[in-house]
């Protein structure tokens, strides 16, 4: 039997190219069709499938299927499909194409077998995701999108420089394979480029800055792809690198602390992406089979519940036009379905028993304990407390439950497709919580972890109950305010104001002055070029009393000049 090997990314890229030429009414259907086709392809493709292309003396591997790439491919394609349903009402073709390109880029990175292919898809992701931020069309989204793009240009540049430097070393080849920092500065540059995409502090501010400014549906895609492809590449290239354990553990706490301070619901969720990616990095850094399984399964669960959280927040923004906790409240009566679907995601990210966070996060935390990193285990559990406080309690309480709905807040009904997309994702959050084997079957290593132990239930229930009690008693302190929390983006956003005032603006002004003078000079020269004699005919006031007859060169002058020339030539001839 002949097996057809098509890179799943190509289906989405082809879809992005075809979408603009399809009738508008069919584009949303086509989006789902292409996403679903890539998902089916990934599910049915055999392990070991490979597709190579020869170019410029290199053998590029544009498709390499194994267990690790398959599990990431499945969840990327699935969330693209669910996101397509959620955004079914979107009629803006640019946004649809960008989302497909973005998902295609993520699949391209996932199945890339060589660093060049990986880099190309990496950059496709950067550009297409930026469009999802700019598409919102606000002044803030334009600025945040530009900062986002600049960060990713920097990250991509570092990655590519690292690849080139690494390849210039002895024995290096372009295959995506496990690397160690001792292999040279090129590998360090690659690592730096990748952890920028993973939003590792202090290179994380692009995420909390830009994601809340994206379109309602764009944020759902953004929450799924960029950081998780970085996690995939780290798991593929740098498993067991201990610094990732340290960075990841710091991330888990960093994100939850900032989320407690934030007022914008999508910024709260953005900070929790940083926190949750921290668990994955920690798992990759530990590097044991159980830890890698934990990181991968948590990435899978995280993409589901985080997309669902952003979908819920997106419904609030879509229906009210507001996204800050101080402007909304008491929405449960208007939005009971949205509230409960959001809560499924909130229970999942908080690690409630029988939800998918319970069966994935615990594997990474347990792997830390098993590898004798008790400090990491405790800090990650503390971050879980903060996660429940921020996403499970603060956000839903002040959005849907606390206080009455502001009188001037109008709430529209969301399109039904938004809820359908949420229900599909919510189903898998619960399904994997009840039947984790469905997820565990795809993990890269055999799973020996059983999440349903008495110890695990007791630990989780006690933490959750007492976190809730403390929240209830201290909810006055945690009440959101209208302030913003400065993050490390202060280091480039604040100086930018002074750089503009004292360097860019004076430079612009001096350029304007010089430009004006050059235009003036060009005008004078042009005037002079028309008739050089004019310059002698202007009076002191600059008025030109020009008369073609008066200033036309006299015929006798010309004859005299020619005659004089002949005389000179005759003398020269006689003498020499």
């Amino acid at each position, binding site marked *: 039997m002949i097996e057809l090997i098509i890179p799943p990314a190509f289906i989405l890229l082809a879809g992005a190219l075809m979408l603009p030429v399809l009738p508008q009414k069919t584009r949303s259907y086509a989006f789902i069709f292409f996403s679903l086709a890539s998902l089916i392809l990934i599910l049915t493709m055999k392990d070991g499938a490979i597709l190579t292309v020869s170019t410029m003396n290199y053998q590029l591997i544009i498709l390499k299927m194994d267990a690790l790439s398959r599990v990431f491919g499945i969840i990327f394609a699935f969330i693209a499909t669910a996101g397509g349903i959620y955004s079914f009402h979107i009629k803006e073709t640019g946004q649809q194409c960008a989302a497909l390109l973005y998902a295609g880029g993520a699949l391209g990175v996932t199945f890339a077998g060589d660093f060049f292919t990986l880099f190309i898809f990496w950059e496709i992701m950067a550009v297409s995701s930026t469009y999802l931020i700019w598409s919102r069309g606000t002044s803030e989204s334009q600025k945040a999108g530009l900062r986002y793009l600049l960060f990713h240009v920097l990250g991509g540049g570092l990655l590519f420089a690292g690849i080139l430097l690494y390849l210039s070393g002895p024995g290096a080849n372009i295959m995506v394979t496990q690397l160690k920092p001792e292999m040279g500065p090129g590998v360090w540059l690659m690592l730096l480029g990748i952890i920028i995409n993973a939003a590792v502090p202090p290179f994380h501010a692009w995420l909390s800055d830009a994601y809340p400014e994206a379109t309602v549906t764009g944020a759902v895609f953004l929450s799924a792809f960029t950081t998780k492809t970085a996690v995939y590449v780290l798991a593929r290239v740098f498993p067991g690198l201990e610094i990732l354990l340290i960075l990841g553990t710091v991330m888990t706490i960093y994100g939850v602390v900032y989320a407690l*301070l934030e007022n914008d619901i999508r910024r709260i969720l953005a900070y929790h992406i940083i926190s949750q990616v921290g668990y994955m990095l920690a798992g990759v850094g530990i590097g044991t089979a159980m830890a890698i399984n934990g990181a991968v399964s948590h990435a899978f669960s995280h993409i589901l519940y985080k997309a669902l959280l952003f979908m819920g927040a997106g419904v609030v923004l879509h229906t009210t036009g507001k996204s800050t906790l101080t402007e909304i409240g008491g929405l449960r009566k208007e939005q009971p379905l949205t509230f409960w679907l959001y809560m499924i995601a909130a229970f999942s990210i908080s690690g409630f028993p029988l939800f998918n966070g319970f069966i994935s996060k615990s594997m990474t935390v347990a792997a830390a304990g098993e590898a004798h990193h008790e400090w990491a285990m405790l800090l990650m559990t503390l971050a879980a407390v903060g996660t429940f406080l921020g996403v499970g309690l603060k956000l839903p309480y002040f959005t849907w439950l606390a206080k009455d709905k502001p009188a001037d807040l109008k709430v529209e009904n969301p399109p039904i497709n938004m809820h359908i997309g949420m229900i599909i994702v919510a189903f898998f959050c619960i399904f994997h919580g009840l039947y984790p084997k469905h997820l565990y079957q795809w993990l890269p290593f055999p799973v020996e972890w059983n999440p349903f132990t008495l110890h695990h239930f007791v630990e989780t229930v006690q*933490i959750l109950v007492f976190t809730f009690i403390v929240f209830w008693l201290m909810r006055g302190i945690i009440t959101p305010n209208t302030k913003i929390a400065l993050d490390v983006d202060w280091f480039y956003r604040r100086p930018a104001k002074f750089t503009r005032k004292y360097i860019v603006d004076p430079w612009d002004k001096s350029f304007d002055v010089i430009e004006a003078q050059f235009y003036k000079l060009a005008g004078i020269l042009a005037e002079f070029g028309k008739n050089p004699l004019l310059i002698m005919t202007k009076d002191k006031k600059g008025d030109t009393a020009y008369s073609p007859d008066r200033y036309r060169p006299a015929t006798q002058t010309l004859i005299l000049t020619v005659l004089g020339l002949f005389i000179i030539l005759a003398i020269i001839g006689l003498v020499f």
Partner: protein
Amino acid sequence: MKLWHWIILGLVTVASIVAEFAGQHGEVSHLPFKIPLFWIWFGAGGSVVLILFGKKLFGPIVEKKEDYYND
């Protein structure tokens, strides 16, 4: 919060404590987790620490008015 909410929370807590003491000996290998009711202390203490650190210590340092970057 209504009374029956607190009653449910109390019952769940009691059930978890009973389960902790009744059925998990030998399952826990790390020292801090052998402390009785460790996770209750951890959940409550962790929440207090995060809220106070975030809102009372860290917040006043980093929180600025909404239009900070635009003024």
